[in-house]
């Protein structure tokens, strides 16, 4: 069940907290303490806006263990407006067709459940962004 592992990821999963490199100014998600660009220490917290766009996407029909109740679901590479890319499910699509370049925004949803009596894991998903802001 690994409760501490999921608890450690709370601020990333619920609030998209990453880092900004004080040397080269790039935004980093997830946080990793060493800047992937310039290789120096980067431990300053940075909270992402949650806005991004779809870089690529696909629909999963055969779900792995723990994700069966969600299937089929769409998973995407989302490019956040501040620069980093992440992997997340898309949600609240309705009848809308997903497309590369579609603007999206972060919401918090249930990611998986570990059986009837298992832990519920929540985290970020992305839904179509309707307004221009």
């Amino acid at each position: 069940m690994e409760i501490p592992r999921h608890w450690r990821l709370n601020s990333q999963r619920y609030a998209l907290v990453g880092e900004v490199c004080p040397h080269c100014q790039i935004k980093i998600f997830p946080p990793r303490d060493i800047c992937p660009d310039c290789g120096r220490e980067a431990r300053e917290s940075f909270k992402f806006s949650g806005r991004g766009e779809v870089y690529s996407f696909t629909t999963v029909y055969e779900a792995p263990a723990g994700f069966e109740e969600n299937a089929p679901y769409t998973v995407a590479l989302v490019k956040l407006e501040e620069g980093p890319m992440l992997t997340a499910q898309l949600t609240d699509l309705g009848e809308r067709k997903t497309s590369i370049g579609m603007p999206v925004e972060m919401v918090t949803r249930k990611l998986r459940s570990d059986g009837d009596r298992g832990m519920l894991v929540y985290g970020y998903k992305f839904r179509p962004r309707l307004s221009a802001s």
Partner: protein
Amino acid sequence: MTASDPVVIVGVGLTPVGEHWQTSLRSLGLQALEGARREAPGLQPGAIYIANMLAPALSGQAHLGALLADFAGLRGIEAVTVEAAGASGGLALRQAFLAVTAGAHDVALVVGLEKITDHIGSGLAAAMMASGDSDYEAAHGLTPPALAALRMRRYLHEGHAPQDALLGFSRAAHAHAVSNPYAMYRKAIRDEDYRRAPMVSEPVNLYDAAPLADGAAALLVARASVLTGAHPPPVRIRGQGVATSPVALHEGRDPLDLPAARLSAERAYAEAAVGPADIHVFEPHDSFTIYAALAVEAAGFAARGEGWRLAAEDRIGPKGTLPMLTFGGSKARGDTGGATGVYQIAEVVLQLQGRADGTQVPGARLGMAQCLGGSGGTAVTTILEAG
């Protein structure tokens, strides 16, 4: 390594790839190991390097080095498992090469083994996703086909390539496997089979995705000067390159590049003092067709976005510009997880020994195998030369 006493691969042992429900993991490994040893019976191995990625998760069995050493009647010898997801095979050979070239051992065995088909249910995808980023990829329901699909969709989009752009890799793989007795699928496919195939994870369809199955493959590695008795022509390890890149697809600078593959190829070319134009046969990682296209580009055989054309234009057959997947690749031979890399290298060895039967590349003298781990986080490129 000295040019005068190179490290060579002299023996190959293979089991057919398939559903070996009647054979245990250790027995499968033993079959391949004995097959390799039989090719040069005069040699006594001093170490075993195992390539495996799924036994702990799927069979509850770790500690395979000691397990197989004892089971094979090689009690007491040095043995270890090398794991780098799908690149385990290439890395196991790397360790064997380093040990022999350093003089620690004269003879070593590389044994890739994997048992996947005992398992049913959704636990397999979870075990496979351990090769990715657990906290940031698997946690969001990503699967290996979905990972390939994210790249494939973007690749077709950016290159304005047709929906069936990657069909050539699947077609060639199946055609080449017809004469491979170890291949799981030995029937050619028609273009319409690909075009009408059901989706696995759109746009990855059934004919883009290699089947996962059981298998074991082994290599007998030695310093050339200790070869004795009858044996097949030794194949020299001319160059090796190992490189890593971010495990998560989203952390790479460019999802349409395979930076570890590119870097590992550059390192191998440099050590071998050759270039792409010198390679006669190429066995890339093709768990999904998109990886084969990207590998062609990363290894310098085609420009960015153009890798698919080599296969689409039918130029990857045994007499083509760049023979590829000559024993069926993972697509038709079958994907054996951590053991796949050993099959890839064994297939290059057989080509260079003139033992490739129906898909022999005429006059093949230099061959390249490229093993990838996960979605490309580890890459091992091995360049081999006919003796």
